[in-house]
Each structure stands twice: as structure tokens, then as C-alpha cells.
């Protein structure tokens, strides 16, 4: 099995998983918060926030990547400030994770927001009368009820991260061992003579990982639904 892929290819798979995992885990709390605000709060600028969240879905990925470069590059507005406290995104795997997180964010927020909107708010009011503070209501009632949506959103974001190409290559380039994830590695193979075999191998890996993510999400969603339905 180890011989099936070259050490470089194993590195690509490992890096892809790491990038996708961090992108998902890192964006989950923010995605949850934004989804909650969009679902529950009405305020001036609601439509604007909604638009900004959805931008990466409708803009060309290269544009998103370029904007990230302007903002988080070494000399970028935020990049320079963050570099002072030791956080660097430019041309690092962390940057790839950031790019993937941004690209998957709208998908995650949409899934979570829909599930929050489906929650029966009368249950939350009931929890309040039983003494639960708003935070405890969220943790003990809202969150368990939206868990299937949260899982679905996270898996969508993970799958998106595994396949993200445009924004990643624009923002953090294609550095072996640092930012070369599955899609960029496949792209690199296709640009060298005789790289077809490698491209096929990584493509199969990519399909397998996507399928696995889908199956896990189905399983988790069914489990969560069983808990809620109580059957």
C-alpha cells in the first residue's frame, strides 16, 4: 500500500487532509455565529452581511484568492499586523487553510442557517421559563436540535476544502510540502510529461476521500436525527 503512492504523494494527501480539517474546524465557530445572526437577528446591514458571506460562492475563485493576498499577504493590511504577532498566512499551509475556509464558508453558513430557522422557537421559550439563560438555551436546546445541519455544513465545507483550487493557488501558490494540496498536485502532474499515472492515482484518492466524507456525514446526520426524533 505504501508503495502505491510515492512519498511526495503521501505528503500531498496528508497536507490536504490537514488543510481541510483546519479549514473546517477553524471556520465552524464563526460559521455558527454568523448563521445564528443571519437567522435570528434583523438589523440594518443584514442584507449586506448576507451578501458578503455569499461572495466567495459567486466570485471567481481567483478573485477571492487575490483579495486574500491583498489582505493577508506579507505586506497586506491584515497580514502585516498578524505577522507581528507571529501569525503568517502567505505561502504557508495555514494560508491554504484560510483560503479553503473562506471558499467553504458560504456553504457552511447556508446549511447551519437553514437548520436554525427550522428550530421551534417555542421550545427555546420553554427552556427559558425553566431557568435556562439564553446561552444555556443555545447550548442545551438549540445546538442539539441543529446538530444535523451543523454536521452537514461542516462536511460540505470539508469537501469544498479538499477540492479547492483557484483561491488556494492564487493566494499561497503551489509549494511542494507546504501548499500543494490534491487539486494543485493533480494540476502539476498534468503539466509534466508522463505525469498521467500520478494524476490518476491522486484522482482516485480524491474520489475516495470525497465519498468517505459523504458517507460519514450521512451516518452522523442519521444518528443526530434519531436522537432528535427519539424513535
Amino acid at each position, binding site marked *: 500500500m505504501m508503495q502505491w503512492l510515492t512519498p511526495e504523494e503521501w505528503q500531498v494527501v496528508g497536507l490536504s487532509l490537514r488543510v481541510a480539517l483546519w479549514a473546517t474546524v477553524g471556520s465552524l465557530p464563526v460559521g455558527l455565529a454568523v448563521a445564528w445572526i443571519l437567522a435570528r437577528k434583523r438589523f440594518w446591514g443584514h442584507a449586506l452581511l448576507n451578501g458578503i458571506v455569499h461572495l466567495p460562492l459567486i466570485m471567481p475563485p481567483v478573485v477571492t484568492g487575490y483579495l486574500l493576498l491583498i489582505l493577508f499577504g506579507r505586506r497586506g493590511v491584515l497580514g502585516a499586523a498578524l505577522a507581528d504577532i507571529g501569525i503568517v498566512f502567505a505561502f504557508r499551509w495555514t494560508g491554504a487553510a484560510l483560503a479553503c475556509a473562506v471558499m467553504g464558508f458560504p456553504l457552511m453558513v447556508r446549511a447551519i442557517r437553514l437548520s436554525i430557522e427550522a428550530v421551534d422557537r417555542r*421550545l427555546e421559550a420553554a427552556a427559558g421559563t*425553566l431557568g435556562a*439563560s439564553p446561552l444555556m438555551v443555545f447550548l442545551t436546546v438549540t445546538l*442539539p*436540535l441543529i446538530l444535523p445541519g451543523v454536521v452537514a455544513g461542516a462536511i460540505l465545507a470539508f469537501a469544498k476544502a479538499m477540492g479547492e483550487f483557484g483561491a488556494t493557488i492564487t493566494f499561497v501558490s503551489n509549494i511542494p510540502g507546504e501548499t500543494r494540496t490534491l487539486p494543485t498536485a493533480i494540476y502539476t502532474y498534468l503539466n509534466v510529461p508522463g505525469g498521467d499515472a500520478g494524476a490518476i492515482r491522486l484522482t482516485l484518492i480524491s474520489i475516495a476521500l470525497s465519498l468517505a466524507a459523504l458517507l460519514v456525514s450521512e451516518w452522523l446526520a442519521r444518528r443526530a436525527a434519531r436522537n432528535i426524533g427519539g424513535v
Partner: protein
Amino acid sequence: MLDVAINHHQGDFHLQASFTAVAGLTALFGRSGSGKTTLVNVIAGLVKPQQGRVTVDGQTLIDTAAHRFVPPHRRRVGYVFQEGRLFPHLTVRQNLRYGRWFTPAPERRARFDDVVALLGIGGLLDRHPASLSGGEKQRVAIGRALLASPRILLMDEPLAALDDARKAEILPYIERLRDEAGIPIVYVSHAVAEVVRLATTVVMMEGGRVAAAGPAAEVMARLDGLPLTRAEAGALLDAQVREADDGYGLSLIATPAGDLRVPNVGLQVGARLRVQILARDVMIARTPPEGVSALNMLQGRIAEIGEPLGASVVLRLDCFGLPVLAQITRRSLETLNLQVGEAVTAVIKSVTFAGR
């Protein structure tokens, strides 16, 4: 003790109501849209009134003049909703324990085993709400509210979504709750039968205002513009069993208005019960009649003669301090020349068991 006085506009609707609820069950009674639910939502903190005060046991929950508003989760006001609202992701046991978790330790008066026994839900503890019947859900919802050790308990038409069999299943539990829980219960209902059976005190709501308030027997026996139809009007008497069975399948019960014989309700001597005497089941005689089949007669004075409606008119008698209603024809009223203050005999055709 609960003290409410509020003034609240909601669209075209104007709610202006005040009442006090002490131990026992206070029924907020009135048609749909009379403001009952808004009123309990104000008490629970789910609706913020524009003006008013709500105090429980001397603690102010709302005082708009002082800009004071205690959020719902700090009120310790139990609430049983019409639709139960059990948490679908928790088992019955977890639902029941939910409120306890948030109750300060020294104030956890309600004991799990006692409440479970009181409501007869011991067999349901490991089930999920989705697998419970409507009546079981509502009993669990009552238990969940009680186990948060509330200072008062609000019940918003808890039986409205249930069929008659399920209602009959729950009513005895609410009676026990009223007699044993030791906290004031505010019970919203538009069903006369529930109020007649359960209420200690009745607050009658009409168009956002309190139309009448007082002891159940008094309010339910009023003759003026009530949400009651003629067929529902009647007197409530609280009684005690004096003789369980007279050998004819009848029990002898004592009320302050006099003794009555009622079909054996299976209660022991000394047990308390409540009976209802519908106005249409009462005839009036100037002198105690002889040779009639009716078993029950009460002596009283005519306290009030209501407005005639069609061919009939309802009289309110004062029988040793208790109101008893009688529906007679206008023709009889004239023929017998009945006047307020006169002594008469109420001949009672039927007495209905209304509750414990």
C-alpha cells in the same frame, strides 16, 4: 401570592387587567382573544407590557414605572404550555430534570420521586417525547415545570389539544396538584367544564378586561353578561360526603346550603367533592312541595332576578350564603309573583359531580 396589574397595547388589542392569585387554582376564564394567554405570557416574561407591575411573593418581576424587568429565566415561574413543548432530543427523565439544573440548590423543593408519583409517569422515564401520547406528554410537561420548584405555576389551556378521554385522564392530576403542590396555579381556559371542576378563584376576562373576579361559586353564578351560555349557567357547591351509600345507590353529601342526595360517586365518608347544579335543572316553589319525586330541595331567598331572555329568566337564590341559580319561565315568574327577597324552595332535578 401573585399580584398583576398591567396595561398593554398589541396592535388593535388593548389589555388592561389586574388580579391577585393566592393559594389554590385561579382560572383565567374567557373566550379566545380575550387576552388570557397574553396575560400569562406577561407573568412569565415572554411578553413585555408597556405599563404595569407583576409581583410574586413580594418580589417584583416587572415594574415599568421603575424600569424593572426580570428576564424569564430568573423568574422561577413554571409554565405548562398548550402544546407541551417537551424537548424532543431528551428522554422524559432528562426533560423532567432540565429545570432542576438551573434552580439554586437551596430552593430545590420539588422532589423527583414525589412529582413522578403524583403524575403517574414512572413508567415513561426512559422514553422519548415522540413516543408519548398527548395526555402523557402533558403530564410530563407538568412534571417538568414542577421540578423547577417554581413559585407559581402557569397553565395555558393545557387540555385544549386533547380529546375528552385524555382530558379525563389528566384532570384528577391537576386537582391533586391544586391541593398538594402548595403554590398558586394560574390556569387559562375557555372551557366551562374545566373551570367548574378545578377553579378555586375565577377571573373572567372579556375583551382584554377583567369582567368579574372572585371565588368560583360566586363568579360562575353571576347573571350579568357572562361568556357562559344559558345551558352552562349553574351553581357550584363544595361538599363533604356524610353517608357513602344509603342502600339505594345514593350518597348523602353536606353543603353549606343544605344536604343533597347524589348518585354514589364512590367516595368515602368525609371526602370532599364539588357538585354543580345547572340553572335549568332547578324549579322554584313558593312553599315546600309534597309528593314530588325530586329528592333534593334547598331553602333560600331570591337575591336577584336576571334579564329575561326569550321565554325564560334566571333567578339567583341565596341559600345560606351560597348562590344557587334557577331557570324558570317568564310566565311562572309572573304567575307566582316572585320578588327579590322572598323565601322560596329550590326543587333540584339533578346534581352533577364536578370534581374533587
